[in-house]
């Protein structure tokens, strides 16, 4: 293929040989979710119930005692201690009675707490029910549990929001509701009251009993609200410290007899919870939002609350009739941020820069706010416009902000070695290309595809910058926002009238970022001038709120899809993908969030990729290299032989290029030098180095005077599931300025030292402290029915109170595979009874205190020889491959090169919910997906191939080559065949093998080409194209042998 100059990877400019692979594109499956309507929110009353439980530190984590406070308008109306009679012995009860009097608390049983306090007091009065990590405490109170199911609403639509959650029974009294809890993330859960037998609540009305809707209750988990308001994960103790309320202190020995100290701790726990609640609520009230705090589940929730406060009606509500085919096309162009390693496993002198507020910045440049406040959007064909823009666009044009306002377009392109984001299963060898469960990664690679694919206009421009040629445009759609909708209301951010935003006239994102920069300026001035702590705290809280608001409204909410398991009996649904609609029966459903607007999401990420592509182009033009990039940051690499000052000067020039695109009040470039480029103490420039292994796994460091690396910034990607092995030496305090735990810093130091000495780091032993020789532990909670079911064998012969129940958390360990064991024990490989155990232990913060690890299936003790140590788990980390690129193999070092993907099959996929693997691993670098099926055109082509092959070679040979039955072949050829994609792909592959072995196809194609060429000389290419009914430019390429003969061309030819 005669293409491209200036490839960024390869100075020779050669595009690598194409490798056929399946590629995966997102699709859209409408759900029967009613369009969001918001009339108002039920609000909690002025009662608040705060409670907390204390449990045994074993696997069952049974509740021993709990404490509560019942408050009305902040006033303490009742407080008490409740206890579990089954877990409290007589002498302990005596202690409890004495201590209750001392603390002025009532002493009641847990049953009395549930009935009199939780139901009679809190549930009936619509109280806010407050706790820290409520799912765990609620599950402690339960007397029984089950799995939550799909609820069919009165109008027949389905509410799947609780699927994958638990239902807890808390009372034997008839008519008392259950509580449903669905885990969303480590920070949040949906919690509500339900009815046991699905019977409605009756209330006494004016004319006797009337049916009313059920009350969901008002559960407020402080962990959730704290995370939403601060973007941070907290323990209760750390939250108390952060909010400046009395800390509760730490306590670790929960296994001892109840004594005054433990009871005082429990009482204090609830008091601290209350104080944190008060402080957080007053922070939330400052925002002056109508949305009740119980409905804020994340930062995105805060963003949505602001949009609601501005009376912004979501796109799906203003334009429900928007064609799903177009949404499908939009979704197929959607890819996440670009994260890649270019210089792998070598120490590279670097300068590290990142784009200030990347997503809000591209939103501002493209003026996407107009879509958020508009009454929907119109679309028009813009094929010629896109062709003209792509033909003319260059770096100079991109430096003009007005160019970016033309980017509201999707382009259907026919990629021919163009550089696009490509989602594929790169880690598969050629044999495993067509698995049914695609775990995919996205890489910016050369793509060639017969089937046209939708890309955003920014992605097309990025490709042109990197390849030097425009992609072939088949069609383009331009979107235009309609008029601004009426009734928009200005808001004051964080309740401060100086921070007013008028959604109708302001560009919201620009305004919020400008405000934040201003507040940050005042904050650092206040710090320098030694202003009062309260003033500093206020400014800090304000700048944080502004940051969260900008981020929460500029990207995630537009692509929010809530994934739930589909009901088994559900009928096939219609999906919309890259080339139209097709039926599918997915195992999961994706329900769009309230502000779902995928056009904005795909334009935002597309433009962010364009920013990085511009950076790449500029740095290559400056004669520089790069080490890695990650969504909004770029690590420039200094070429060998270049002086540091020269390197710095050139990087500064690249950064300065972006000044013209700065949309904000404060002048300067939006591509900024990060702090890591200067000395931590002096602030003077200091040589920075980078060591990167694969996408999102990298560290930046300085060399210390002692020859040891000083980590400046590191990634914990792929390490986050491991508990810190150091115990109290590595406390779970607010983040270190490297962004990772102490032990992770040490790990990076080890890897860098090994790499620097070239002491073969492939075999490095990572036991730099004795703790690393201990079994590697992770913390897992039974947050879903699936995870809980893994304990079924353990639970089977135990009574309820000693079972592992929902939300119990345990330590998990990794066991060795039999072949790893065999290194020490030859017998391990041959003994069929030897299966790797599934080791768990009761949770503890101090790993040195673990005394007993057992198999969660058999309950038997696990031999230590089975357990992988930290060192053993870490061993593969430094050789993690970057398989989406060439030369990214495990032990390779140095530059990676882009692959060239020939889109062999195009699959439609949906997003998959977070997955827990049973072996304790999480597919960290995957972009997990549920398959929806082949695209219709690829299905049709495959069926056509089956037909041709059967006719040519006969059923018997075909059956043998494809490994399918006669019946399968017959079914594939039925009209409107519903044959599974998997079978179809198998037959197609068999067919390819037959044709290849036969050589018939090659001969035929050669003859066909000869025939067409002589005909073309006779009548000309355009006339021949018209005769065959195909595209003239494609035909020309075929005749010039730059494109192979497609099945459709063969058919057209046979038809003439």
């Amino acid at each position, binding site marked *: 293929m005669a293409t491209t100059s200036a490839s960024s990877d390869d100075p020779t400019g050669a595009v690598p040989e194409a490798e056929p692979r399946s590629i995966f594109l997102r699709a859209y499956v409408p759900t029967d979710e009613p369009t969001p309507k918001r009339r108002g929110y039920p609000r909690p009353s002025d009662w608040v119930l705060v409670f907390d439980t204390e449990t045994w530190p074993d696997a069952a984590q049974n509740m021993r005692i709990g404490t509560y406070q019942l408050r009305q308008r902040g006033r303490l109306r009742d407080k008490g201690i409740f206890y579990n009679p089954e877990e409290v012995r007589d002498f302990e009860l005596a202690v409890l009675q004495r201590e209750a009097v001392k603390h002025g608390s009532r002493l009641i049983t847990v049953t009395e707490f549930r009935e009199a306090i939780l139901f*009679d007091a809190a549930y009936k009065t619509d109280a806010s029910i407050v706790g820290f990590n409520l799912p765990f405490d609620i599950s402690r109170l339960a007397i029984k549990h089950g799995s939550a199911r799909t609820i069919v609403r009165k109008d027949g639509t389905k509410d799947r929001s609780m699927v994958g959650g638990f239902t807890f029974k808390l009372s034997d009294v008839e008519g008392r509701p259950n509580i449903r809890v669905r885990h969303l993330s480590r920070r949040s859960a949906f919690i509500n009251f339900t009815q046991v037998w699905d019977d409605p609540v009756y209330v006494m009305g004016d004319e006797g009993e009337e049916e009313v809707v059920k009350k969901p209750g008002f559960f407020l988990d402080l962990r959730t609200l704290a995370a939403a308001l601060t973007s941070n994960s907290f323990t209760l103790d750390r939250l108390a410290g952060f909010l400046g309320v009395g800390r509760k202190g730490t306590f670790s020995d929960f296994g001892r007899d109840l004594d005054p100290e433990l009871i005082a701790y429990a009482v204090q726990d609830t008091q601290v919870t209350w104080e944190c609640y008060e402080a957080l609520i007053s922070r939330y009230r400052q925002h002056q939002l109508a949305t009740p705090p119980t409905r804020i589940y994340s930062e995105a929730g805060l963003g949505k609350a602001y949009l609601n406060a501005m009376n912004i009606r979501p796109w799906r509500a203003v334009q429900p009739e928007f064609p799903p085919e177009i949404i499908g096309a939009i979704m197929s162009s959607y890819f996440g941020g670009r994260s890649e390693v270019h210089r792998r496993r070598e120490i590279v002198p670097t300068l590290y820069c990142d784009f200030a507020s990347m997503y809000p910045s591209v939103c501002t440049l493209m003026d996407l706010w107009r879509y958020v406040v508009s009454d929907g959007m119109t679309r028009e064909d813009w094929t010629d416009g896109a062709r003209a823009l792509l033909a003319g666009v260059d770096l100079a044009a991109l430096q003009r902000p007005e160019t970016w306002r033309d980017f509201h377009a999707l382009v259907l392109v026919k990629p021919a070695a163009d550089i696009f984001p490509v989602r594929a299963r790169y880690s598969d060898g050629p044999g495993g290309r067509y698995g049914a469960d695609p775990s995919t990664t996205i890489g910016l690679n050369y793509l060639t595809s017969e089937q046209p694919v939708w890309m955003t206009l920014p992605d097309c421009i990025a490709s042109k910058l990197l390849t030097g040629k425009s992609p072939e445009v088949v069609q383009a759609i331009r979107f235009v926002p309609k008029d601004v909708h009426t009734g928009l209301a200005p808001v004051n951010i964080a309740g401060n009238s100086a921070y007013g935003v008028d959604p109708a006239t302001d560009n919201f994102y620009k305004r919020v970022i400008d405000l934040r920069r201003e507040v940050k300026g005042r904050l650092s001035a206040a710090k320098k001038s030694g202003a009062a702590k309260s003033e500093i705290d206020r400014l800090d809280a304000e700048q944080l709120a502004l940051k969260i608001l900008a981020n929460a409204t500029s990207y995630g909410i537009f692509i929010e899809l809530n994934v739930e398991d589909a009901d088994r009996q559900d009928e096939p649904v219609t999906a919309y993908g890259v080339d139209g609609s097709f039926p599918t029966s997915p195992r999961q459903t994706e329900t769009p969030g309230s502000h779902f607007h995928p056009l904005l999401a795909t334009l935002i990420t597309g433009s962010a990729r364009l920013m990085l592509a511009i950076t790449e182009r500029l740095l290559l033009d400056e004669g520089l290299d790069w080490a890695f990039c990650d969504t909004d940051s770029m690590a420039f690499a200094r070429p060998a032989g270049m002086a540091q000052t020269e390197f710095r000067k050139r990087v500064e020039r690249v950064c300065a290029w972006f000044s013209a695109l700065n949309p904000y009040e404060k002048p300067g470039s939006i591509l900024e030098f990060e702090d890591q480029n200067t000395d931590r103490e002096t602030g003077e420039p200091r040589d920075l180095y980078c060591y990167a292994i694969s996408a999102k796994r990298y560290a930046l460091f300085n060399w210390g005077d002692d020859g040891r690396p000083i980590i400046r910034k590191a990634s914990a990607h792929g390490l986050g599931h491991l508990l810190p092995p150091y115990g109290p030496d590595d406390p779970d305090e607010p983040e270190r300025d490297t962004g990772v735990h102490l032990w992770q810093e040490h790990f990076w130091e080890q890897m860098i030292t090994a790499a620097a000495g070239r002491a073969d780091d492939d075999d490095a032993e990572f036991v730099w402290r004795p703790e690393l020789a201990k079994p590697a532990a992770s913390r897992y909670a039974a947050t879903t029915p699936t995870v809980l079911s893994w304990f079924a064998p353990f639970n089977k012969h135990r009574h309820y109170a000693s079972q592992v129940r929902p939300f119990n958390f345990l330590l998990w360990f990794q066991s060795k595979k039999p072949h790893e064991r065999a290194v020490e024990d030859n017998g391990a490989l041959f003994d069929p009874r030897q299966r790797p155990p599934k080791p768990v232990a009761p949770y503890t913060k101090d790993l040195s205190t673990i005394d007993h690890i057992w198999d969660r299936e058999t309950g038997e003790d696990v031999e230590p020889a089975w357990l992988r140590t930290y060192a053993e788990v870490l061993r593969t980390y430094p050789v993690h491959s970057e398989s989406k690129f060439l030369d990214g193999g495990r032990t390779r070092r140095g530059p990676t090169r882009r692959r060239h993907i020939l889109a062999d099959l195009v699959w439609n996929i949906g997003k998959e919910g977070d997955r827990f693997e049973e072996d304790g691993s999480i597919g960290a670098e995957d972009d997990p997906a549920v398959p929806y099926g082949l695209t219709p055109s690829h299905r049709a082509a495959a069926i056509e191939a089956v037909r041709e092959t059967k006719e040519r070679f006969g059923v018997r040979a075909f059956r043998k080559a494809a490994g399918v039955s006669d019946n399968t072949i017959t079914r594939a050829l039925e009209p409107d065949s519903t044959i599974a994609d998997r079978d179809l792909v198998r037959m197609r592959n068999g067919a390819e093998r037959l044709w290849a072995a036969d050589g018939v196809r090659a001969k035929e194609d050669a003859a066909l080409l000869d025939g067409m060429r002589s005909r073309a000389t006779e009548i000309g290419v355009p006339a021949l194209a018209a005769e065959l009914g195909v595209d003239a430019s494609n035909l020309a390429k075929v005749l010039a042998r730059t494109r192979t003969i497609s099945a459709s061309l063969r058919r057209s030819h046979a038809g003439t």
Partner: protein
Amino acid sequence: MTDLDYDLHCDAERAKKRQKFEAAGHFVHVCVCCPQDDVLCLTFEHPAGKNSDDTTLLVCMNCKALRDCLQRAEPSPSPNPRNVFEVIGRWLLSMAGYFGILMSTLRGFGDFLINLAKDGYGDDLSFV
């Protein structure tokens, strides 16, 4: 019964009442004619009569009693309660009744504000 028990009881009744109003789409719980905002004192009102019209208002028992008093002076029902003119007519009379009550509320509040000003409260009005 303790104070706590009494308070919990009343607030449980309030919660039921609120829930009922919210189910009917009322998220602001104040009487249409006066400042009464205790849900226990509020009730639904069908301006055109329960059988003729789905729209509801929230009104307090006091104002409703006044309105009922006015209603007793209105013409007796015609033979067909679903006659369109009958429905609109009843609705208008009902509205007139509530506006009448509202007027006395507004007068009272106006007088109240003026007396405040006389006593020296309030700032200068400024137009921005």
